[in-house]
């Protein structure tokens, strides 16, 4: 059950047209070496789903700059002017989702929950094309789960079984994205043997992880 492989081998399972969930908030917590490997591999027509578009030189922004992304689903693109430009010229589809709704939809995708009711976005454009469900006197939007073909995750410490710890604010979307994809690849700053990672610090139990890659910066 040793899941450690090279970045190239892990990324070789990602094919043109696939959907990828990525961890990170403004690039902090996005796995740099997996983005490197995806750029090297040149996989195209990707749909990527994560918190934000980072900046042109950081995180998922690099993959977008390199023309490998067909569609971006995120809550915020305001700090990446290149994304706005690509969107306005029709070269990139962008779907904007409220941040709390986005992360909860991903959690539902991993947790086998068919959807959830929220008042976030009620009465705004976010409501379009969505079921409105009434409970008592309150109205809610029904938001549906998100899953992806692949999740690319950045861990601080992982063991070879695939248990992962994320330090400080690098957690963000990482432990959620790791539950909601068919193939989950973790790039870790440090890889240890089973038993060396404090069970109390594991935020992603190994069951969710397919591959562990070392050498993340």
């Amino acid at each position, binding site marked *: 059950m040793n899941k450690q492989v090279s970045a190239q081998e892990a990324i070789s399972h990602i094919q043109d047209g696939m959907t990828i969930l990525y961890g990170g*908030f403004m690039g902090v917590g996005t796995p740099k070496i997996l983005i490197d490997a995806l750029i090297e591999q040149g996989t195209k027509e990707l749909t990527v789903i994560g918190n934000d578009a980072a900046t042109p030189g950081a995180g998922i922004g690099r993959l977008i700059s390199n023309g490998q992304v067909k569609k971006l689903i995120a809550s915020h693109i305001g700090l990446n002017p290149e994304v706005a430009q690509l969107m306005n010229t029709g070269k990139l589809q962008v779907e904007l989702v*409220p941040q709390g709704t986005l992360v909860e939809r991903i959690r539902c995708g991993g947790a086998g929950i068919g959807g959830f009711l929220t008042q*976030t976005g009620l009465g705004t454009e*976010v409501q379009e094309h969505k079921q409105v469900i009434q409970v008592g006197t309150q109205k809610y939007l029904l938001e549906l789960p998100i899953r992806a073909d692949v999740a690319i995750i950045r861990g601080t410490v992982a063991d070879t079984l695939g248990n992962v710890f994320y330090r400080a*604010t690098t957690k*963000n979307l990482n*432990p959620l994205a790791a539950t909601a994809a068919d193939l989950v690849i973790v790039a870790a700053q440090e890889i240890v043997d089973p038993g060396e990672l404090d069970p109390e610090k594991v935020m992603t139990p190994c069951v969710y992880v397919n591959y562990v890659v070392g050498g993340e910066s």
Partner: protein
Amino acid sequence: MALKDKELIAWRIAQELKDGDVVNLGIGLPTLVANYIPEEIQLMLQSENGLLGMGALATDAQVDPDIINAGNQHITTQKGASYFHSADSFAMIRGGHVDVTVLGALQVDELGNIASHMVPGKMVPGMGGAMDLIAGARRVIVAMLHTAKGEAKILKECSLPLTGVGKVNMIVTEKAVMEVTSHGLVLKEIMPGSTLDDIFATTEASFFLAENLALNDRKTLEGGEDGDQASNF
């Protein structure tokens, strides 16, 4: 002058915060509120990327690459801080566990609607966590300049796409402090340097005057104290 206005807004909003409050400050002008929190109160700043107990901005020597706030700034943490993932962060926000959120806005209207996340065709940055903060925080305070390029921002009805419906509780500009009530907007205070005529002239929305309408004295700010008038609220 613009900076002075923003500092004034930030100072005034800081007076609204209470000991023990959990507060989320939006990016930009709202962030300045942290500089004016009265010394005698302790509060916890929440950052939606997964941190409760945000401290001051990190100096170069303090920068930890794994620790940022939602505005992508490297920050320090308070004693008693904690980290969590985004779903837990928005559970905290949506679940009403954030006492106050301070947010910027493009437009606000008589019904407490707010438009803050896009100008169609011009600026589409995405709503980030704003919609969740507006829907979930116990109290929503808008921090903004009273006008934009001479155009009123406090309107009868927002014309831009809404970020939240009927959720704004208070609006603080460099000219006025208004509360949103079930009867409509109520002008509670005239900010130092402004006049009632000035506010009428630069506000499209209708508003009532509070019975105890207060005139904030700029000296209160300069003296660094919480004036009597401001503490009425």
